[in-house]
């Protein structure tokens, strides 16, 4: 529920920003949200799910001995990582060290995505979390 409120808040940002100046640029929030969502759909959704729901049984190795793609919504652990760590994982990729294969199961996207696009998709992921998770992640990012 909270994530929808957060998404709506982002979409309503121009109005709120115009009223109070709290949420920053009047035009940037919905644009960033749309761009983040578009990048997510282009590069991430095929593995992590269109709603960030991840793969089924993502906590256990699959038949290849690889950990499946985790959710990015509130049921996953993306919110436990700082902005810097999320940026690093998207840019450089990631391999769970106990996978039976040597490949990067989370591919590196630094060739396909600009730094601004990576930041944009991280911003979008934050709309999938609860208020408490966003607060936790904000602390981790400090």
């Amino acid at each position: 529920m909270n994530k929808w409120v957060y998404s709506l808040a982002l979409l309503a940002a121009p109005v709120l920003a115009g009223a109070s100046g709290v949420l920053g640029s009047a035009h940037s929030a919905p644009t960033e949200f749309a761009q983040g969502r578009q990048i997510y759909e282009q590069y991430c959704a095929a593995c992590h799910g269109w709603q960030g729901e991840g793969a089924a049984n993502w906590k256990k190795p699959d038949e290849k001995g690889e950990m499946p793609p985790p959710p990015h919504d509130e049921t996953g652990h993306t919110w436990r990582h700082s902005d810097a760590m999320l940026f690093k994982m998207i840019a450089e990729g990631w391999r769970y060290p106990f996978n039976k294969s040597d490949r990067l199961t989370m591919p590196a996207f630094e060739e396909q995505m600009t730094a601004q696009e990576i930041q944009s998709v991280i911003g979008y992921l934050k709309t999938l979390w609860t208020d408490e998770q966003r607060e936790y992640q904000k602390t981790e990012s400090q």
Partner: protein
Amino acid sequence: MREIIHSLTSAAWGFCVLTLAILMPALAQPANAAQPVKALTISSSGALLVLRDSGLLAIEGDTSTEIALPAIDQEAQATSLAKGADGNLYLAGPGLGVWRYDSSGESWQSLSDTLPNLGVTAMAAHATQPETLYAYLGNDGMFRSRDGGAEWVKVDSGPQETVQAFLHSDMPGSMESGWLFAGTTRGVSRSMDCFCFWGDAGDLRGTVSAIGYDPAAPENVYAVIEGQLHHSADGGETWTSLKTPKSVTALAFTPTQGLVVGTSNGNLLARGAADEWTPVHE
């Protein structure tokens, strides 16, 4: 007749000498040595710290020094020892909460003010971050402090099963700064220290009473299940049993003796290069 008396006297003396020879080594042992070893760790100077019901002992070379435990309620139990990355000694247990030892002042400081209660059943210190501590409080879950115990924050519920023993390791490969190993009633559970998710570390099953690792080769993890010592050389993926002379109750790595275990009958044993066990004298 005289010969018979002489023979009987000799036999009696022989019996006495034999009895003394059997009993003397036991009598020479410290009175507390017969108590099970509850926990082991090392101090900043490399001394082996031994926790028994009778108290806490620091063993360094040929010298043993008793460290007075904090004054605690009778119902409280000291069950966990941990050495912080800065060398500080931590003590914890159910009803006890978490304490830090000030070696210069030879006193204990309670670190439990911001914990929801004192029911700490397992604790761990971060392998490389001096101020980071972890405490497990049963149903209340896992708490972390990043300021040396001044403020504790709940970070996770922990594995599904109750945690009996807790360990932070700087084994490579984590998304964050290391790994957490939890000895549970099901076996060994493992998570990166982001608390991303807890998963089985291999298929070792049973109630884990002690867990440790080799700081010089962090992939080497050790766990005790019902007195049996197990070793994993691959970070908990696969396990093999290690033979020990007695039932193991605690373990630690020392800089000079390597793996040292404490046993149910109070002995301390160091593992040699040829996998033999030799007594550690108190």
